């Protein structure tokens, strides 16, 4: 082996030892762990989203639904004309959002996404929310506010 190659091998060996001592800095590790955890949560939420099977079932009854829907609409119009009510929104009742991230980071998120989901109450413990053990397996409808890069920002419950 010529001296130049021997010298290079020595330097490569020293560089190898130096590199082997390099470890992920704590601040990077924490950031990566947070992102990995959030991504896992988003994957879980996506997997827990409502089962498409009832959709198929509904489609089978769609033809019957048209005339019966029309009848229901007429009944509703009649009922409302007799007894008018005012509602702020046509949506089901929604609770307030519970922050899962610092408020300033939620406020800084320009275009968050609202992700609807239905999950067992036990799952809420993952997000640090209180769970009644006697109702742990009872599903709850939720809406997650998720940042564009997949960070969970807030959650609210839909009744």
């Amino acid at each position, binding site marked *: 082996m010529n001296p130049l*190659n021997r010298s290079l091998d020595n330097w490569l060996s020293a560089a190898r030892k130096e590199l082997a001592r*390099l470890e992920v800095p704590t601040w990077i590790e924490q950031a990566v762990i947070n992102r990995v*955890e959030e991504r*896992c949560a988003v994957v879980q939420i996506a997997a827990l989203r409502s089962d498409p099977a009832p959709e198929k079932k509904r489609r089978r009854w769609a033809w019957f639904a048209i005339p019966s829907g029309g009848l229901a609409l007429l009944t509703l119009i009649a009922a409302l004309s007799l007894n008018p009510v005012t509602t702020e929104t046509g949506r089901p009742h929604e609770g307030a959002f519970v922050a899962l991230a610092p408020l300033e980071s939620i406020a800084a998120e320009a275009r968050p996404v609202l992700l609807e989901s239905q999950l067992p109450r036990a799952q809420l413990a993952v997000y640090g929310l209180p769970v009644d053990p006697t109702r742990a397996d009872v599903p709850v409808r939720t809406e997650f506010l998720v940042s564009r890069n997949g960070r969970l920002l807030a959650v609210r419950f839909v009744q």
Partner: protein
Amino acid sequence: MAFDPPMLAGDDAALLAQAAAGNAAAAAQIYRRYANTVYRFAWALTGSQADAGDVLQQTFIAVIERASGFDPKRGSCAAYLCGVARHFAYERHRMRIAPAEDIDALVDASASLGAAAPLPDEVTEQRRAIARLHAAIRRLPPPFREVLILVELQELSYADAAAVAGIELGTVRSRLSRAKAKLAELLERETPM
């Protein structure tokens, strides 16, 4: 949210599949097993702690999103993760060549690996020389650079290096030989070793 999962049994492929299904404990286990390997590779490629951190993050996020990419027959999990990291490092930098003034930053980064106490001159000098070596490695053309890093610095097998770079085993050997020759030439031109 706590991220201190219990140890899970299972091989890398199974853990990756669980991580892809949203299992944070499995993702943590894979991360803890390979984070340093991926980070070192990314650092050696990019020369920047911040970039290496970003590449590390992108790699693990991508892996969670598509675990189906890992095939144990094609190489180890370390090789698979380094392959993903390589993609992000290239995408990020377009294999930017480290300018000469980066040497001081490299020395600082290198020094941060050791004790915080002031270093003896000879140790500082050795670190400076290693930093110069890293800077020279980053001046190599990308195909040679990555093979040199993978085999010589990361100590991956030729087969794993071939899997990471997506080349044949024979090409790894020839590129490594040429990389070392080019590196010796670069270092000789700059400073006598």
